[in-house]
């Protein structure tokens, strides 16, 4: 078992009223799964994803990641955990525009305090694997959207995460580029990486082995 959510609630208070963002979420994810989270806008998809990624908290319930209780963890410990095991892919890539492709890929390794030689090897490896060696000295704005997302995925993968969380990874791409990214995910999944993606598209959702539907913060 990779992670488990038990009776998760998340809410905000607005004008004396409690508005639920997530309501009683129970979810178990096994290693090697490929899950799509679907639902209309405002149903809590992204909230759930960030919650899984430990970037956002919750108000009630329990979250176990690799048998460890996330809900009782200190901030620092939690950050070490997601730094180690989780990679993120975003709709709008979130590459750092001031850094080259090479430097963007290197960054997660810097925060993991990995030595220079190993960093170089890993980055070179990743560039090779995604066929973007020629682009290594370019800055993100000089790349096409598809290429940027490719770099985004490469960055998520570089620290060998067990889990990749993707927030509408193809949302800003044309269908061909989108398809390429999804194929890539499929391939990664077959190599053993667990993937959870938020998506609107039925087609993309179909790549997954399991689909979770959300409506008004509830799983249906």
């Amino acid at each position, binding site marked *: 078992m990779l992670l488990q959510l038990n009776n998760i609630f998340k809410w905000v208070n607005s004008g004396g009223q409690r508005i639920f963002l997530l309501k009683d979420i129970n979810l178990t994810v096994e290693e090697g799964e490929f899950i799509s989270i679907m639902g209309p806008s405002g149903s809590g998809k992204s909230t759930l994803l960030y919650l899984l990624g430990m*970037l956002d908290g919750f108000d009630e319930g329990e979250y176990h990641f690799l048998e460890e209780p996330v809900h009782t963890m200190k901030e620092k410990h939690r*950050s070490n955990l997601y*730094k180690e095991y989780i990679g993120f892919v975003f709709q709008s890539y*979130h*590459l*750092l525009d*001031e*850094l080259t492709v090479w430097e963007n890929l290197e*960054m997660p390794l810097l925060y*993991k305090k990995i030595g220079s030689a190993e960093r170089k090897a890993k980055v070179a490896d990743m560039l090779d694997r995604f066929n973007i060696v020629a682009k290594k000295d370019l800055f993100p704005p000089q790349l096409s959207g598809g290429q940027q997302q490719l770099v985004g995925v490469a960055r998520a993968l570089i620290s060998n995460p067990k889990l990749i969380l993707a927030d509408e990874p193809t949302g800003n791409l044309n269908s061909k580029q989108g398809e390429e990214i999804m194929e890539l995910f499929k391939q990664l999944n077959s190599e053993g990486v667990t993937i959870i993606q938020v998506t609107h598209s039925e087609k993309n959702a179909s790549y997954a082995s399991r689909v979770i539907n959300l409506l008004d913060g509830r799983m249906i």
Partner: protein
Amino acid sequence: MFKNYFIIAWRNLIRNKTFSVLNILGLSVSFGVAVLLCLAALFELSYDSFHENVDDMYQLYSSEQFVKGPEVSLSNPEPMAQVVKNEIPGVHDAVRYLDDSALLVKGENNFTLDGAWVDPGFFSMFTFPVAEGNPQPLAEKSHVAITKAAAKNVFGDAKVLGKTIQLLIDGEQKSFEITSILEDLPENSSLGFELVINFENHVEYENSLGQWNQKYHEVYVQLEPNMSPATFHKNSAEVMKKYLGDSIENTISQGTPPDADGNYVSLRLLPMSDRESMMVKDGLVTANHNMVYLLFGVAFLILIIACVNFTNMSIAKSVQRLKEIGMRKTLGAPKKQLFVQLWCESLIIFLISALLGIILGRICLDTFNTIFRTQVSLDQFASIPMLLGFVFFVLLITFLSGGYPAMIMSRMGTIQALKGKWDSNGKNRLRNALIVVQFCISILFISGTLILWQQTNYMKNKDLGFNKDFVISVPLSGNASSYEFIELFRNELINQPGILSVSGADDNLGYGEDGSISKSVMGFDHKGKNVKTNVLTVDADYVKTLDINLLEGRSFDATRAADSLAFIVNESMAKDLGEERPLEATIMLDSTPFKIIGVVEDYHFEELNKSIEPITLIMNPTWGLYYAYVKVAPRNLTNSYDFIEKTWNRLQPGTELRGSFLNENVDSTFR
């Protein structure tokens, strides 16, 4: 990791060119200004610190009780130094010092040198290194020491050591031997001189020998290392009673209250390091460091403006960086690291600015020195503690003004940052406060400048009670009898159209080209009351030449012999005398009767910020005149000045006319 920070910081600087340039420009200018102001302040504080014995050195002054209150005098009578040295315990040495010009006669030419007439012990107490010659200058009464610069000025490149020179003292040429050449005085020396002569050669010396009532020179005291000035002060009262008993009894008989210790005359010491910034207050001479505080304060405020500006711009700018911050957090960056990264970016800007600021300060240094009449140099910075202090200061203000934006950003929630939303609830308060502070300081500066400007304008345009626009004052070189010279000068000038009147006096109005200012004060008893007045020795046409308003009576008349026993007083003096009809009053000075022949309207003979004191004009041909005054017609000022210069050069070959209009003199007093 730091390399990565640096790369990001640098690329951000380049990318946001306008932001970077604006910030660096603003900060550099304020760093430059602050550096200059701080240097000026430190320079003020460094006065006389180069003397090795400075911690034990003091300037002696006496504090005397009067009916009106205590008065201090930095001038001392001839026997004082010896008495202080011999009779007050703990005194290592006491030397007399008289700053008076010395006229050097060299063939056809005369040179007026800035002279210091001192006791031989002067050079053991003060640290004025000898460059060449006898390391103990003034070993003999006929020995003199000259500074390198003055030697070059007078003798050019010729060999000076061992040379015999002629000084004109009391109308006679006397021979002296230059036995020592001094290094030029440091800029931060409060004493200034070109030629050092044994005190006993001064013209006043013979007459003042043993006299306690003629105060005319300064005394410097070096205490033993374990002595305190307070003990010295306590011990001095008895000694003063011994020598000034009569005068003290006289003071007591007038009902003068004693000071807190029950004394009427006592001696006090002003630390040598405070001499440059001395200020007289409540019968004490103390250091007035207001200027230093003001300089530091202004420097600090200017830096605050720039830093607040930087902080606000950084915060405003940081909205663009939110996504980066969010992404870094997502990749596992701890708050501390983010803070350090953002702070490093500020540090880069501040370091560049500080460096540019110093360069800017260096470029403006000469202009700054000219405008502010100081002698600041960047060498003052070149000491380890100064540099460390500067670096520490830059780091500190970087920490404050760069740290705040860095803190806000590094504390931002990850999701919030990723979404690029700036949650400004409540956080704007500090920014708003900072903007208000910034505006307040600016307003303070702007209004301060305006007020100062108006004040100066007011002072410049104020009617001072005399004609300052068309009167030229000329410092006399003093080698001929001054009355004869002025007579000659007048005869040569007066027929020239455009020259209206010529006169002379023994003091200048404002600061002239010779930069010297003096004050003579006398006191006497009139109808049982002690009266003090300034005294000005003048030539006959003084009142007319300066257009001073004569209220009553008449001016001096050169043809009336009795006028040498006559006074002209100003209104304040007339009031102080308490005479209803001053023209009928007779004043007894040393049992000689003096008649008041005229009363003039009060005029500002001292600085404008002083109230007008009583003054008495005397026409006494036995006392010298040091300044000639020439009133010219408003037309063709240049022609008139040229004519005066030509006449001067004919009458005083080899000397230079150093005339200046009185309004220039008055303006110089504002600086």
